[in-house]
């Protein structure tokens, strides 16, 4: 079931490639006709999805579990390989990039995961130092071998997320909210131009969720970073995003600026789907 009246702006946004597009802000992320197929059952996780995100824009992806939000985010940096279509960050094409080029692209893209994806036995400081591996190489796998300025940067990033006093604590002894802050500090070490956040607050209590969202968005604002985040909470999407994109069964069904968005029209995106 499509959301009534929602698909039209999307089609307009994607297919309108005439002279008007040169007038607005430059496109930061360009996804065109993206297809991803599940290997296990041959069905499409994403079916011909197209999306443009402008520079410095914050886009919230909403949808039910299995709607394709996480797949889309992972596909943007090819943690999931697409079956077709094209993706580019600025002038750099992701699809078809060599292994080395892909590593260069990933350096600029900070990824925040729902499950934090930290190394639990290591300290917060050690995990944050890992964030420099994209730019400074494998020496940053261990604080012992990492460069002095990387160590200073890491402490700075931990202080930025409010965990300066937790540098030597093992991350598996921290709360969920603190672990997500460590993950954000690790992402800051990348000095990213883009942030992809896959349900960054889904496993946190409401207070921690608000604090993490506040932190993520304030960092994005102060550094002029383009953000695409998958969220389940409509209220958070409306509070922190500039634009809301709804996915349903791997198809883009809604694309609205938050300013002109009525919360009631977002609810059908979460309605029961028939697979």
């Amino acid at each position: 079931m499509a959301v009534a009246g929602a698909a039209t702006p999307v089609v307009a946004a994607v297919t309108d490639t005439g002279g008007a597009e040169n007038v607005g802000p430059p496109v930061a992320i360009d996804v065109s006709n993206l297809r991803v197929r599940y290997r296990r059952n041959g069905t499409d996780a994403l079916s011909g999805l197209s999306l443009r995100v402008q520079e410095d824009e914050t886009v919230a992806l909403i949808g039910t579990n299995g709607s394709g939000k996480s797949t889309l985010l992972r596909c943007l940096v090819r943690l999931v390989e697409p079956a077709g279509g094209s993706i580019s960050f600025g002038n750099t094409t992701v699809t078809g990039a060599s292994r080395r080029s892909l590593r260069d692209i990933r350096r600029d893209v900070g990824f925040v995961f729902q499950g934090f994806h930290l190394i639990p036995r290591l300290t917060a400081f050690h995990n944050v130092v890992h964030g420099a591996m994209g730019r400074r190489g494998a020496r940053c796998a261990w604080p012992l071998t990492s460069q002095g300025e990387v160590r200073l940067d890491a402490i700075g990033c931990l202080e930025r997320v409010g965990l300066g006093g937790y540098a030597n604590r093992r991350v598996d002894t921290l709360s969920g909210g603190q672990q997500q802050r460590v993950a954000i500090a690790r992402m800051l070490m990348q000095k990213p131009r883009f942030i992809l956040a896959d349900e960054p607050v889904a496993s946190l209590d409401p207070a921690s969720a608000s604090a993490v969202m506040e932190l993520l968005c304030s960092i994005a604002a102060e550094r002029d970073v383009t953000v695409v985040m998958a969220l389940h909470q409509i209220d958070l999407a409306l509070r922190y995003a500039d634009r809301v994109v709804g996915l349903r069964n791997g198809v883009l069904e809604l694309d609205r600026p938050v300013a002109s968005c009525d919360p009631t029209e977002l609810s059908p995106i979460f309605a029961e789907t028939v697979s």
Partner: protein
Amino acid sequence: MSGVSTRPVPSTTELPPRLRRPSLRTILVVAAVGGLLVHGWTEGAAVRPDSLATGIFRLGDFFADAVPPDLGRLGPILAALLVTLEMALLGTIIGVILSVPLAVLAARNTTPHWSLYAVSRGVITVSRTIPDLIWGLIFVIAVGLGPEAGVLAITVDVMGFCGRFFAESIEDIDPGRIEGLRAIGAPRVGVIAGGVIPACLPSFVTTSMYALESSARSSVVLGLVGAGGIGIEFATSMQLLRYDEALTIILAILVVVVAFERLSAAIRRRVLGA
């Protein structure tokens, strides 16, 4: 008020059988095992009560000759035991160090190429399936009699043991940890050094400690085939019927092997507890 009926309610669902009929495969496996036991019994691979009865008396003779243990050659025995321990320690350390890259190549989630996966799995299988005593004989031919052959035999044996369990530990790692570092743009070496190895470290340490215990035992036996250490002393004492001296060696080995096991258990507890 009427009482509650204890009669079972008639059901249309069929009651499951108490015993399921064995499958053809189960019958074949049981028949094969039974056949091997019967064949072994006819070929002498058996435990016969009459030989056990006479054997116990001979064992009594051995202990009568062995007690009290002869401490006359304690110095050379302890020196040989020290060499045995050093063989075990050096062989285990080299084996564990070599096992780490081997395991990285032999784990599906970290191997750079399927051909390297196949080769490293092959190396692990060969190292593991050939017993350490045979490796000892092979290395005695290669480098001559002495502890060097023992160290090499233990190294290969540990590579087979640790290589397999390290690789399985790497394959069991939460994929998110690898994905998190790949998403940063970390090079492959960085992902392994910064993510995979720290995550697998407790498992690596416990496996290495088991390997050390096993090496302490096998280093004794390796001496019997000329690969140095206390084994040669023990074989000589037994061949010259110096059972009292042999008992001294057995007791010394017992103390050392138990000490090794206690030490490795303490290290395991400390690592897992941390």
